[in-house]
């Protein structure tokens, strides 16, 4: 069974799943695996690994910078799949890959889906593949039991939310703000809660995980009752990018500590 499905099946109700995002190959190629270990031991429920792209349209400055660094080090899809395979020798934590469609298209959707299944990737997030362009991609991933994870945004209509819920698997990614990654919780308003309530009322088939702007557990606390989990990305990357080499581990530990409830 797909590890994501299994994970949510076993998750105690009322407990928030924690997805930690890291761009592949950070802080360096050599230290990527040990950083994944740190994230797992800090209690990550799910790992989201970013596949770098030269033009990440839905991402703010932090993830843009992380993408540039990863590409500069030569990270590509083959390297990422290999890394997941290595990770799988040690951990059963569900892994989802997040990336823009062009490198995947270039690799080939069918070969990519097949390799994902083989190395132990459980889901994919493709932020520039909306409902309109999803159909062919979706069937291929689902044939290989790799969940295509849909994104819901505050601008999504009810009809689209229901459609995405019907078509997607794994979980639904709730984009908390109208905007790009890397903001903060000050962007959340009374409309955020309305949006989450709307989602909760409409989504019947998938767990819902919120992301964009979450830096610490208290950011998500007010919406706990409406969510199955949350996703932290840019804030974690900033620790990796901004800390001096020797301090990364300490800084990361402190940061991850504040993600606990």
């Amino acid at each position, binding site marked *: 069974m797909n590890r994501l499905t299994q994970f949510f099946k076993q998750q105690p109700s009322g407990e928030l799943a924690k997805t930690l995002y890291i761009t592949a190959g950070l802080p360096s190629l050599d230290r990527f695996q040990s950083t994944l270990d740190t994230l797992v031991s800090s209690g990550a429920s799910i790992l989201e690994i970013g596949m770098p*792209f*030269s*033009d*990440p*349209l*839905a*991402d*703010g*400055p932090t993830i*843009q910078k992380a993408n*540039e660094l990863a*590409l500069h080090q030569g990270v*590509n*899809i083959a390297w990422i799949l290999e890394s997941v395979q290595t990770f799988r020798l040690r951990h059963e934590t569900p892994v989802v890959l997040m990336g*823009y*469609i*062009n*490198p*995947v*298209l*270039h*690799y080939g*959707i069918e070969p990519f889906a097949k390799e994902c299944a083989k190395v132990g990737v459980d889901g994919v997030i493709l*932020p*520039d*593949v*909306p*409902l*309109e*362009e999803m*159909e*062919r*991609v979706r069937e291929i991933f689902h044939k290989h039991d790799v969940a295509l994870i*849909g*994104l*819901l*945004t*505050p*601008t*999504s*209509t009810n009809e*689209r939310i229901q459609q995405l819920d019907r078509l997607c698997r794994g979980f639904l990614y709730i*984009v908390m703000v*109208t*905007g*790009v990654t890397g903001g903060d919780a000050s962007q959340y308003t009374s409309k955020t809660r309305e949006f989450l309530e709307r989602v909760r009322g409409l989504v019947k088939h998938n767990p819902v995980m919120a992301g964009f702007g979450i830096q610490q557990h208290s950011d998500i606390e007010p919406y706990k009752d409406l969510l199955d989990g949350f996703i932290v990305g840019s804030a974690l990357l900033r620790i990796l990018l901004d800390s001096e080499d020797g301090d990364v581990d300490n800084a990361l530990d402190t940061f991850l500590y504040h993600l606990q409830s």
Partner: protein
Amino acid sequence: MQPATKSRVKGYFGDYGGQFVPETLIPALETLSDAYDALENDPEFHHQLDQALHHFVGRATPLSFAPRLSKHYGLKIYLKREDLCHTGAHKINNAIGQALLAKKMGKTKIIAETGAGQHGVATATACAKYGLECIVYMGEEDVKRQRLNVERMQLMGAEVRPVTSGTRTLKDATSEAIRHWVTHVEDCFYIIGSVVGPHPYPLMTRNFHRVIGLETREQVLAIEGRLPDALVACVGGGSNAAGFFHPFIDDKDVAMFGVEAAGFGVERQKTAATLSKGKPGVLHGSLSYLLQDQNGQVDLAHSISAGLDYPGVGPEHSYWKDEGRVNYSAATDQEAMRALETCAAMEGVIPALETAHAFAWLDKQQAIKDGGLVVINCSGRGDKDMEMITECRATTRGIA
């Protein structure tokens, strides 16, 4: 990637186009698409647009016979004078059209991207005319290279935001404009400067530029009593070519030639010849030919002309290429410069560096026989390029 089914054709030109953008933007694109469709059939809107194009832009632009170039090349050559449009290039046709559309939709904040600054200037102009707020994203490199256009935009009340990410040129200015749009989608309207981006932009931008081809058709019939044997235009994103070609697309006897920028040469690393050298891929919301590396990362483009310095191309051009309807080739920096000099000296018209690539076709073409009737879309004037032209000529003289 193919459209899912044959019936799923909305926003596609054959296999190209689509809406590869974050979910956040999809409802806005639907609203835009509906508003545009409604206005397409609105005589009042067309009347207003026609009035603006006539009294403000200066349309119709002339179709000028080029006697000395004709003699030189053994052809009968006409120039469609988009260089005589207000602001100096065809870009204003689309900027005025989209600004008017934005106004009808009740949007008051406009954003745009620009490379050389021509689309930025056109958009700033349209916004000043219609009393709209305007923010233009421009790569930091281009801000430095095109200081005068930055001044022009600022003079007309636009805010120019330098983009420091990635290559700091048009590609990244476009990405940054899309990010701004994702963040302010509720109240801002994005005026894209070429026939690129997600549906309905490629269609809409092409239609706002169709006036170029429609006028040409009427003018050439009036002067020559027949359709031309060939149309020639430069292609970066491809907006001037799309608007010029489209009204003739069903006239099978009219051959069409799109000329891309080969930069240092199509076989070299530094090129912007997307259709000659690229492969299908997704950038800025649509599937089209794309310059990319072996991992699907978008390649740096290079061209002497900032307006052609873009690694993508409009999806309709990809379709026309595959269909064989339009013949695409590429001219190098050097070939374009030479053609620019020839045109300037023989006709008293200094074309823009972008446009010069279309003129370079004359030196290499063998498809059109002696005496053939050729119309070149003179998409912009070269005043903005004088610094670059001067520099190039100095270098060439130095070598000689």
